[in-house]
Each structure stands twice: as structure tokens, then as C-alpha cells.
């Protein structure tokens, strides 16, 4: 009822003195030190362990960026209004996708042999899968993913930024927005296929005999969940840095909280769907995945995930008051980011040491390389993210639906 009182926000660029403005430097240093240490170790005796840490860090951060990409193509297609005030944050996150090709290269160039048993082992099952799990095809698929991600993410980002400078030129704005609609809708299909196949190629093939048809959806559920949690935290951090102080209201945080809550349930639903079919059928080639995660300390992670990644956050975020209050919501989001890292760790690390044939036993053993790789990977992301965030406005100030988003209210 107070549409006329809402002004366009003016605090829409990162101040030079804020921490956000220093992200390129801080992130850059973290990236050089963290990734340097990890890849340096990958040159020595710890090569396999270092590459597993690297893959874990890469997939954990890529999940966030792909989540932003998926959110954006869906958000544009459904003509969402509530999200305009936080959409530039998602646009900037997914605009870092092309850069992830560089971060992916060490996996293919240095660690491929250590990570993926199918590159050099063989048996009757692997021979039947050879047409798909062969080095050349694997490379080719990865190139296709990165080309598609680069083209679409750059297009969506530059289109949105172009609107900023168009003022009241409604005809030109409509033309650009209609073009993003035309790209975003098929973009959903491309996103669904590429992120699923990327998860299969880079994570599921760590245990090449095993297969799960829901694996791509599992990765999606983790990725979209961490996206909403991180977007909430970034929005809060931006407000602390003196940006968008009035534009993002408890109504928007409530919606971000609802999405976070919803995808907590979605993650559990998908994770359990994968588990129960394998548990019920009890066929050795399928149970291999869970057998590996029920020994050597990993069983505690397997038991902890349903409780800490689902039950606790479910009971916590179910409350409307929590979703509308700043610090309680921030706490829930930080917790879910940590759980996302644990989830990815549980997906990737048990495969470490699965080489040389014979029976493989997994042992849960955290290494300093995990922390180095994670800090480096987060640093690399923050450097590019911070650079782009500083370069342009942090809100799509000229989007025709901005007024609706500013006035957004939940019933």
C-alpha cells in the first residue's frame, strides 16, 4: 500500500573502502597460495590426494556457480518479479562460469589418471562403457559444456548490464529483455543436461562401475541449495558494506529463506530416493557406492548427513520468524554451506585410493590439502566475483520490474 513512497535505491555501487572492493586482491592471494600449494603437492608424492582435494574444492564451488546459472535461466523464463533486487548477484555469480574452465584444466591435464580409474583400468564392464568413458569423448563433452556455459552466461550478464545504461529507452530495453527470454527458456534445457552430464563425467565416474540415474539431480539439488544459502549471505554482507540497504527487505530474505528451506527438503528427497532403490534391490554393482561409505570412518558421515543436512535445518528453517530475522537466517545459511561442503566431500573423497585393482577400502582422513584447495578455490571465485561486482552496479537499476520487486510483500 506504499508504492508511491518507494524510491529507487542510490546505494548501488560497491564503495572503494569496503571489503568487497578488496575481494580481487584478497581472493587472488588466497587463490595463488591455496591452489599453488595444492597443485604444487600434486607434482610430488601426494599427487593423488592433492588432486582429490582439488576436485572436491572445484565441484563444491562450481555447484554454487551452476546453481546461480540454473536459477537465472528459470527466473528469467518465469518472468519473476520479486527477485530483481537480488538478481544481479546471481548474474554476477554465473558470469564467473567461463573462468571455471581454467580451474577445470588441472583436473584434466594433471590429475585425470589419479582421479579416474577408467582412464587406465579395464574389465568386461568398463569395456562396455568404453564408448562413453574414453579420454577423447570425455574431453569433448567438457569442451561442449564450457562453450555452452560461457556463451549463455556471458550473454545473460551483458544483456542485464546493458539495461543499466539505457535510462528510459523503453523500446530498446524491451528488445534486450525479449532476447534474454528467448535464450533463457532453451537455456533451462541446456543447463539441465550439461550440469547432469558434468556431474556424471567428473564425479560419478570416480567409481566407474557404479551408476545412478538420479546422480545429476542429486548434484542439482546440492547446487541450487548452496546457491540460495550463499545469495542470502552475500545480500546480507552487501548491506553491511553499505549497499542496497533499503532495496533488499525482510520480504526478500523471507523468500530466499523459503527457497533455501524448500531445497533442504528437495535434497533429502533426492538423496533418499537414490538410497532406497539401491538398498531395497541389494544388487552388488549398485550397493558398491554405499558399501564404500559404510566403512573406515565414512559411516559416521553417512549417518550424520540425513540428520545435519536435513532434519536439523528443516526444523530450524521451518519457522517464519527465523526466515525473516537477519542473524538466525544467516546462521542457517552458514550451516547449510558447511553441510554442502560435507556432502560433496562424502561424494568424492571415498573414491580416493581406488586404484591398482583388487578390493578397495575407504578411510576417512582429512588432509591439510583439503583446506588449501578449498581456500584457493573460494579465493579464485571471490576474486572474479568481486571484480565483476565492483565493475558494474550491484542491482539491475533500470529493469522495468524493479519497482515491483522493491515493493514486494509476502501475504
Amino acid at each position, binding site marked *: *500500500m*506504499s508504492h508511491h513512497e518507494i524510491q529507487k535505491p542510490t546505494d548501488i555501487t560497491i564503495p572503494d573502502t569496503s571489503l568487497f572492493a578488496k575481494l580481487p586482491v584478497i581472493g587472488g592471494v588466497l587463490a595463488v597460495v591455496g591452489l599453488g600449494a595444492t597443485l604444487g603437492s600434486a607434482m610430488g608424492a601426494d599427487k593423488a590426494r592433492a588432486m582429490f582435494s582439488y576436485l572436491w574444492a572445484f565441484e563444491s564451488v562450481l555447484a554454487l556457480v551452476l546453481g546461480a546459472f540454473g536459477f537465472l535461466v528459470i527466473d528469467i523464463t518465469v518472468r519473476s518479479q520479486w527477485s530483481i533486487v537480488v538478481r544481479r548477484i546471481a548474474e554476477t555469480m554465473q558470469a564467473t562460469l567461463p573462468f571455471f574452465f581454467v580451474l577445470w584444466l588441472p583436473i584434466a591435464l594433471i590429475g585425470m589418471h589419479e582421479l579416474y580409474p577408467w582412464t587406465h583400468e579395464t574389465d568386461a564392464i568398463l569395456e562396455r562403457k568404453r564408448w562413453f568413458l574414453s579420454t577423447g569423448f570425455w574431453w569433448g563433452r567438457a569442451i561442449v559444456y564450457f562453450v555452452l556455459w560461457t556463451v549463455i552466461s556471458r550473454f545473460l550478464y551483458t544483456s542485464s548490464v546493458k539495461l543499466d545504461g539505457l535510462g528510459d529507452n523503453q523500446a530498446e530495453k524491451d528488445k534486450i529483455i525479449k532476447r534474454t527470454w528467448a535464450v533463457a527458456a532453451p537455456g533451462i534445457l541446456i543447463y539441465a543436461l550439461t550440469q547432469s552430464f558434468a556431474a556424471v563425467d567428473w564425479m560419478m565416474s570416480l567409481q566407474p562401475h557404479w551408476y545412478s540415474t538420479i546422480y545429476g539431480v542429486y548434484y542439482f539439488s546440492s547446487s541450487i541449495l548452496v546457491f540460495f544459502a550463499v545469495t542470502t549471505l552475500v545480500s546480507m554482507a552487501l548491506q553491511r558494506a553499505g549497499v542496497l540497504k533499503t532495496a533488499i527487505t525482510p520480504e526478500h530474505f523471507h523468500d530466499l529463506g523459503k527457497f533455501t528451506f524448500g531445497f533442504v527438503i528437495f535434497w533429502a528427497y533426492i538423496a*533418499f530416493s537414490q*538410497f*532406497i532403490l539401491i*538398498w*531395497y534391490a*541389494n544388487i552388488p554393482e549398485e550397493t558398491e557406492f554405499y558399501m564404500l561409505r559404510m566403512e573406515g570412518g565414512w559411516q559416521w558421515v553417512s549417518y550424520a548427513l540425513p540428520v545435519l543436512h536435513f532434519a536439523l535445518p528443516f526444523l530450524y528453517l*521451518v*519457522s*517464519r520468524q527465523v526466515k525473516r530475522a537477519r542473524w538466525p537466517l544467516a546462521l542457517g545459511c552458514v550451516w547449510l554451506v558447511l553441510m554442502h561442503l560435507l556432502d560433496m566431500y562424502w561424494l568424492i573423497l571415498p573414491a580416493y585410493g581406488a586404484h591398482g585393482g583388487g578390493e578397495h577400502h575407504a578411510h576417512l582422513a582429512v588432509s591439510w590439502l583439503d583446506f588449501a584447495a578449498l581456500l584457493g578455490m573460494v579465493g579464485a571465485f571471490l576474486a572474479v566475483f568481486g571484480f565483476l561486482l565492483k565493475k558494474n552496479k550491484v542491482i539491475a537499476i533500470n529493469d522495468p520490474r524493479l519497482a515491483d520487486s522493491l515493493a514486494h*510483500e509476502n*501475504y
Partner: protein
Amino acid sequence: MSENIPTWGLLAQYEDPHSIYQACEQVRDAGYQQWDACAPFPVHGLDRAMGVKPSRLPWIVLVVGLVGSALGLWLQAWTSGSAYPFITGGKPLFSLPAFVPVWYEMTVLASCLAAFFGNWILNGLPRLHHPAFASRAFERATDDKFFIMIEAADPKFDLAQTEALLKSTGATHVEVLEP
């Protein structure tokens, strides 16, 4: 208005959402408790303007949902594990993973029923008649007019004073409702 006919309350008509929003704030600030507002479409923030307290419905849903959840799990554990022990697929008698789908559905079912019928009970439904239905003007509450009704049961209710208040808030038409 005659003093000797029994009064259920007063009905006031407003022409647009803005005026009913401001009228609600004034009625709220005047300290009335038993009153309601009707609009042909949702008016954003009207519950705040009316000073409506948060609904108790979430707590009802939570409690009934948890009871349904416990009941769903107990029913399966008791039937498969104790009342009629029967080994299925070589699994233990108490196999939690096998119980999860029904456990989950029972939680959802109990929560949904609690939300649906809790909503009825808190709103005093089912109710076949309401004093406002006697008013010809009120028929337009589902079309293009906005209404506030204050019940005579409200401790602050005084026919003359309440009518004066409603008129001062910009009501275009005020009438007495009989029980």
C-alpha cells in the same frame, strides 16, 4: 437509528483500498478488538493495519504433524516388527529405510489435514449465516466495495460513538446490523 432493536454491530462501507487501509489503522488505534474488514481482493498489509496477531495455525500444524509422524512410524514398526513379524527381502524386521516413505507421507497427510481443518476452526467455519448478509450494500464486498464491521460485543462498542468514529474515517455509508 432506533435504540430498541437488538444490535449485532455496525457495518461501514469504503470506496477504495487506500481509505479502508487508513480506516483500519484508526479503528485499531481506537482500541477495538472484535471487528473485521472485508475486501474483494487481498489488500497488502491490511492485517498489519488491523493489528491482527500472528495466526496460531503454524503451531497446530506443527503439533499435529509431529503426532502424525510418530503415529506413522509406530504403526509400521509395530505391525512389521511385532504384531505380524514377516521377513521381506531378507531385511531386518525393523528396517527404517523401508518405513521412510510411509513415515514421510503420514507426516505430510497429518500436517495438511491440520492446516485445512485448523483453518476452518480458527475462522469459525462452517458457518451458514452471518448478520452482514442481511445488508444489501454488503453484496458488493465481492465486487468493488470495502467494508469494516465492528461487533456490539466489543467492550469499547457504543452505538453513537462507534458510528461517529466510522464516519470520521471516511465511510461513505454506515448501517446497523441485526443478529
